[in-house]
């Protein structure tokens, strides 16, 4: 299956010279829910999106615009109806979710979803350490890795490095989301997917986590797609912003144009499409 991806890719190389640096290529993606019923909904309507290596893309859009569906399609949680997805020049379109894991780090909105609560901090990190690798009968946590986890946890500045053997269920939402961020980036994924990962946190903690995210992404030069409800966040962070509306890319801005953007301007231009209150309040 991977071969066919490379084949498709070489054909593409001829048509676009910059293709080399593209980490993610989403081609004419389409996803319809409840097809053939009266509840049929076109969630993603022919999206084509190319993300360069090292890009930090923020994604906004009202409820039902298709933001989370787009991430679910890239991660393989949902299967695609039409179109192709390439990550690092490999077609992953037909790979099941667990086989895409080696390319992807992912953080969900719900802090409970990124960690196994009945297991300890070090056990969670050890599982993330083996992202996409086969798991055998070796010890789950080794001495040398434990030291590495300690060093990594120190960067969070939450005192977790002294609590390696504590169950994750003892951590607060913000601590769990910070730990999830470490786990998602521990083995340096090709692509980091953030799905409103600060939305469920209180404003202060959310700010901490988003700053930490920015730092980790910058230091590791990670290609990132971040879905957010908070327009201020979307404008402030990252080097590119796209707005989805009814399953299509409505607006795509990057570089200096994006830096010059203000919330008022976006609301003025797209207010009619952004019925979402959370977005307008931002």
């Amino acid at each position: 299956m991977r071969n066919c991806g490379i084949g498709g890719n070489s054909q593409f190389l001829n048509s676009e010279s910059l293709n080399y640096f593209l980490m993610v290529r989403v081609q004419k993606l389409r996803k319809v829910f409840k097809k053939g019923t009266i509840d049929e909904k076109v969630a993603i309507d022919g999206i084509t999106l190319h993300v360069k290596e090292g890009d930090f893309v923020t994604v906004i859009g009202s409820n039902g615009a298709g933001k989370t569906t787009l991430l679910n399609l890239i991660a393989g949680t949902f299967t695609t109806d039409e179109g192709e997805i390439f990550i690092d020049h490999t077609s992953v379109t037909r790979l099941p979710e667990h086989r895409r894991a080696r390319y992807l780090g992912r953080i969900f909105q719900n802090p409970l979803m990124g960690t196994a609560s009945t297991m300890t901090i070090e056990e969670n990190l050890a599982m993330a350490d083996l992202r996409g690798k086969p798991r055998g009968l070796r010890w789950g946590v080794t001495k040398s890795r434990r030291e590495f986890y300690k060093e990594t946890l120190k960067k969070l500045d939450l005192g977790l490095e002294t609590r390696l053997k504590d169950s994750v269920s003892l951590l607060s939402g913000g601590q769990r989301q910070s730990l999830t961020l470490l786990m998602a980036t521990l083995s340096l994924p090709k692509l980091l997917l953030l799905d409103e990962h600060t939305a469920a946190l209180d404003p202060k903690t959310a700010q901490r986590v988003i700053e930490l995210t920015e730092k980790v992404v910058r230091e590791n030069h990670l290609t990132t797609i971040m879905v957010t409800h908070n327009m201020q966040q979307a404008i402030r962070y990252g080097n590119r912003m796209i707005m989805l509306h009814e399953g299509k890319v409505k607006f795509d801005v990057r570089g200096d144009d994006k830096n010059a953007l203000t919330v008022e301007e976006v609301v003025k231009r797209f207010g009619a499409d952004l019925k979402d209150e959370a977005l307008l309040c931002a």
Partner: protein
Amino acid sequence: MDSILSGFLRTIPISLEQGLAYGLVALGIVITFRILSFPDLTVDGSFPLGAAVVARLIVEGVPPFYGICFAIVAGFLAGCCTGVLYTKLKINSLLAGILMMTVLYSFNLRIMGKSNIQLLTVDTFLTPLENLPVNRFIPIIAFFLVVSFGVKILTDLFMHTQLGFAMRATGDNEQMIRALGVNTDNTTILGLGISNAFVALSGALVAQDQGFSDVGMGIGMIVAGLASIIIGEALLGKHTVQRMTLAALIGSFLYKEIISIGLRLGLAPTDLKLATGIMVILALGIPALKREKEGKLHLRGV
């Protein structure tokens, strides 16, 4: 008062023998209900499966040790079948277990060729131990101690390997561990296989201990196992894997002890399953009545 106490003491060896032998069932249920969060009802069928396989093979003249090995393999395969029904055919987890339990009933009858086989007049794996020139309980209890704690320790070790982590995470947060690259179908099938291998081993040992295998000996096994776990966890908690497996064995002993005290106090043997059922209903129901959120069992596929 004195007679109750002395009665209590006198039942301890029997409760130890049975509690440890049945403790392997509780260990198996820890893997499914607790670690995989999978309500596996295959147990009622895989327990007599282990007994049936070992009984038939011993009667056919196969050395008991090999009989036990075959019983373990049979239990493993039965558990894997339930796992395949759930993961590949997308059958509800409870129903998958019930289906396998029902199918195994016919299997067990086929294996034995009749509804029961007696093993009192043939040499079993336990016969050499029973022929030792000491009180029968000493070598038998020692044997079951070694086997049940051996299996417990192996389980603890396995659950701290990379694969064991993946299995625990499958029960805890399936979405998360799949996003980390684990095929949770495989960990579920493997876990169900291991669990039912323990249960079948228990069935194989119990059949030899009591001297017969009967097609109906698995009825209510899952509820009795759950009762054991609940009793053990009430005393020891369930914060770590080691605790949970220890709680299963201790709970299994205490369950047998409670039952034998009940019998002494006049509980009719026919009402045993009723009493066990009420015990489990109370243990599972009281947290709900107290409106405690934590008490709720998190189970997959139901």
